[in-house]
């Protein structure tokens, strides 16, 4: 009984930390632009493919090591950051003064563009993600067996999230990001170049999605061009659950969702895995639309 519980707990935390990495991008972009960037899940898909191609190119599947993993994650993060920069620059920036609905439709368009470009470039069939880090077997503590990969995924995510936390709350760039999310005009009166800060925000969020892509490839090594849709939507639900725009909320929302999914699958109804997230979304929107940690938006007078 206890063993099973711990097993589900570990799975849930590992899954939740991947949702968290994606949810952070949603919530950060929403913070600065009040935009739900529906293409974000597809950036995560690109992250997985970039990781795969990097591993093939440098033949990291044969010499698996922590270094190979860190290298792959870094390449994927940087490439995804560039993709995020380009998406913002060419798809969203020209619409900065347009009604929000136009931007939202554009986001859906970008998402479709990435998904079907992915099918064209990578092929529609699932591909196998190389084992860039191969643990030498499960860790056993008594009868408990834990896959070290899941612990690794959890810790890498925690490290990345701490770095993000430091950037946002301790650096001048983070200060500027928070200023822009408070009010664009006011931030520009400080001389803050708001466009550039928005670009940086997209780059940070997309970089984290890239890392999530590699980590998922590592634990569930089958990747395909549409793999971003479901985790993207779920991470969005996680961000709404935590209160969209709230960094800490996104992480807690994602962890909650990951754990809830695992326990649901483990103890009750495996077939309802995907329904859970949307059930939560409906409940949140009905009873607490600002999310667990969101504050009510105050209208400026």
């Amino acid at each position: 009984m206890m063993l099973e519980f711990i097993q589900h707990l570990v799975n849930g935390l590992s899954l939740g930390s991947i949702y968290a990495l994606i949810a952070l991008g949603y919530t950060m972009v929403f913070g600065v632009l009040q935009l739900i960037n529906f293409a974000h899940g597809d950036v995560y898909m690109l992250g997985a493919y970039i990781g795969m191609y990097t591993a093939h190119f440098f033949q990291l599947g044969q010499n698996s090591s922590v270094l190979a993993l860190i290298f792959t994650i870094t390449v994927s993060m940087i490439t995804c950051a560039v993709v995020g920069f380009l998406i913002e620059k060419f798809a969203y920036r020209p619409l900065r003064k347009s009604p929000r609905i136009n931007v939202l439709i554009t986001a859906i368009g970008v998402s479709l563009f990435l998904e079907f470009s992915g099918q064209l470039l990578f092929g529609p069939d699932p591909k196998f993600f190389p084992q860039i880090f191969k643990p030498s077997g499960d860790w056993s503590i008594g009868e408990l067996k834990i896959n070290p990969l899941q612990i690794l995924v959890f810790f890498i995510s925690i490290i990345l999230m701490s770095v993000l936390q430091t950037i946002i709350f301790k650096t001048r760039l983070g200060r500027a990001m928070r200023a822009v999310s408070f009010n664009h005009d006011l931030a520009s009166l400080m001389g803050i170049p708001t466009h550039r800060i928005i670009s940086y925000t997209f780059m940070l969020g997309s970089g984290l999605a890239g890392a999530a892509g590699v980590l998922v490839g590592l634990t569930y090594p089958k990747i395909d061009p549409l793999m971003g849709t479901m985790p993207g939507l779920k991470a969005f639900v996680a961000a709404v659950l935590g209160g969209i725009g709230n960094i800490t909320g996104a992480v807690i929302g994602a962890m909650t969702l990951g754990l809830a999914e695992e326990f649901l699958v483990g103890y009750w109804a495996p077939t309802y895995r995907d329904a859970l997230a949307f059930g939560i979304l409906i409940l949140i929107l009905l009873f607490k639309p600002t999310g667990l940690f969101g504050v009510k938006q105050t209208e400026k007078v």
Partner: protein
Amino acid sequence: MNKSSGVQSTGLTQEKLLEVEKVSVYYGAIQAIREISFHIAQGEIVTLLGANGAGKTTVLRAISGLIKPSQGKISYRNEIISKLSPDQIVRRRICQAPEGRGIFLNLSVFENLDLGAWTAPDPKTFDKDLNQVFELFPRLGERQNQNAGTLSGGEQQMLAIGRALMGHPELLLLDEPSLGLAPQIIEKIFEIIQKINCDGMTILLVEQNALQALHIAHRGVVLEAGNLVTQGTAQMLLSTDEIRKAYLGE
């Protein structure tokens, strides 16, 4: 408030620092200001007066680049700035303390001041500037780690002014610094404005509180329903009967 000493120590020159020429601004189809022209010389306090909705804040937004004039131009040190973006204008050393709650309520007092120094010409002067602001407004020093949202109205206004000073302005734009504040605090803020001016800073002071503003200003510009109705020296405006009636409540 001692005006005469202020005038003497600044040593007014006739050099135009900022020139607003026939500027009109529309919000959609509605004309907010119509062909407004005035200038500010180096070292002056010029006050922009008028009732609520007269277009004072619109003039300020046009100067700081938040809205583009549909006609006319604004130049600063003989360079046309009305086509530049707000952050480029701040880099020309025109800093604004925005109206009302124009501070970042989600950041601490220190973080607000730090963002004010975003375009400061020399990062090495940061600590010195910070101490100067704390000398001017000791309350801000005591509360530097507090969230700006927890400050009182007067303290928020002090923060807005202090933050603008962190950017080393040559021209300081103040939008209704007395709005919603108790009389003693207004007096204190006006004293500080005068002190900053005596130290050589040029100031554009937007005010509804005309009498108090004209007591520290060198010149005044009066707006009414988007039109400039009169401008002149503070003494002249204070002695004109119509102005006294219409704007000074006498």
